[in-house]
């Protein structure tokens, strides 16, 4: 007997869904809503996604999906093409080896871990941007971006967690 359609939908939702959700969040943050000056300080959604995924999921992330997600982030943030895929993959490889430090730990520990990883990743992005543009870039905007990214992690983690729960129910 053929598997019901809902079975396939669930498989797709589990496999592609989280990446589509992350990409959707990246794009939603780029909608031209009235921001009164705060619109440029946006959280690094894909970084939060990779961290959450590695800490809370056993399955490996499809590398191609990670690459595409990084390209969407590059496009949305105006970063040099290829920069965010590089950062996400390096973070993924490093984090996958240190995952045990965050399993079954309190949220505060995970949040602190994310803050550390985000600081290192954005510092690396500063190096890449400075190399790309041929001059040292100002640190102020990067620091603001880091603060917003760390502050947004509980919200983004909540969204990813809610999605994960709703998919696992089926």
């Amino acid at each position, binding site marked *: 007997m053929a598997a019901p359609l809902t079975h396939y939908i669930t498989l797709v939702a589990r496999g592609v869904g989280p990446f589509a959700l992350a990409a959707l969040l990246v794009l939603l943050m*780029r909608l031209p809503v009235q921001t009164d000056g705060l619109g440029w300080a946006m959280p690094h959604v894909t970084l939060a996604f990779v961290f959450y995924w590695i800490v809370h999921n056993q399955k490996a992330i499809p590398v191609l999906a990670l690459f595409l997600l990084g390209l969407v982030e590059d496009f949305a943030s105006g970063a040099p093409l290829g920069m965010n895929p590089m950062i996400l993959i390096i973070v993924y490889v490093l984090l*996958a080896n240190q995952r045990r430090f965050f399993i079954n730990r309190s949220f505060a520990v995970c949040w602190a871990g994310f803050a550390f990883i985000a600081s290192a990743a954005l510092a690396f992005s500063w190096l890449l941007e400075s190399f790309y543009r041929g001059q040292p870039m*100002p640190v102020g905007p990067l620091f603001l971006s880091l603060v917003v990214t760390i502050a947004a992690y509980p919200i983004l983690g909540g969204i990813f967690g809610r999605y994960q729960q709703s998919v696992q129910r089926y």
Partner: protein
Amino acid sequence: MIRLSSGTRGSSRGLFDRPGRRLAISLILLLSLTLFILGKVEHPAITKIRTGMQDIITPVMAVLSVPVEWASDLSDWFGGLVSIYDDNERLREDNTRLRDWKAIAERLDLENTRLRQQLNAPESPVDTLVTPRVVAVQGGPYVRSVLVNAGADYGVRDGLAVTTRKGVVGRVLMVGAAASRVLLITDFNSRVPVRVERTGQNGVAVGRNSQLLSLQFLPVDMDVVVGDRILTSGDGGVFPPDLPFGEVVAVADAAVDIRTLADLENLDFVRILKFDPRTMEPGEDKEGL
């Protein structure tokens, strides 16, 4: 060296155990690095990829923005209901005042036309090519740009000036078939030749990825005070002359800060100008060319 396997313990076991996974990671990393290096050397393929992504993502953004627009319209509608009486009073006063201004403007327009005829000066070459909508803000710590839903299909090309009715917004940087990227004047890479309206002194407005710009390359005997209006000078041929640009908000020693007249934080529709600097040449004689 990065270890791709978690070793003997730890819950990450298995993440890199599948055959070919290390190879896949290495290849994708190499591909990312290649894209990055190609972008650094400004290879045309990177521009094509970006414009292709623009054309794909723009319709998606247009769909995503529909509920946001509805919410915004609804909020404006309720806001309008609350202030409807005050707005009506204000509009009556504005109407009376603008009727007086209309009479003055018509007289000045007539005078201007007559003087242009006497001096053989060409008409102002600034027309609107298209009025697209901003569908996305493209930006991060080091970039200030927006995506608009008009591209080569509407005749948009690189370098065209973009404004709102309040002032200059930026210039077209990357053109796809159905969408274009506009580099804002506040971007780190933006340089716009401008002049101080009161004194006529020329300078360059330099973006610095914040709401304020720096006014640089002013003459040594610069005469700038807070409140001075800044207009485009037309030098370089990208921006037409005399477009409203900004207002001086701080002067300290040699540093002059200006704020844009256009509200770059709340952009909706923008005008892409059809500007050909060649039509600015005085005493044109196109028959002889």
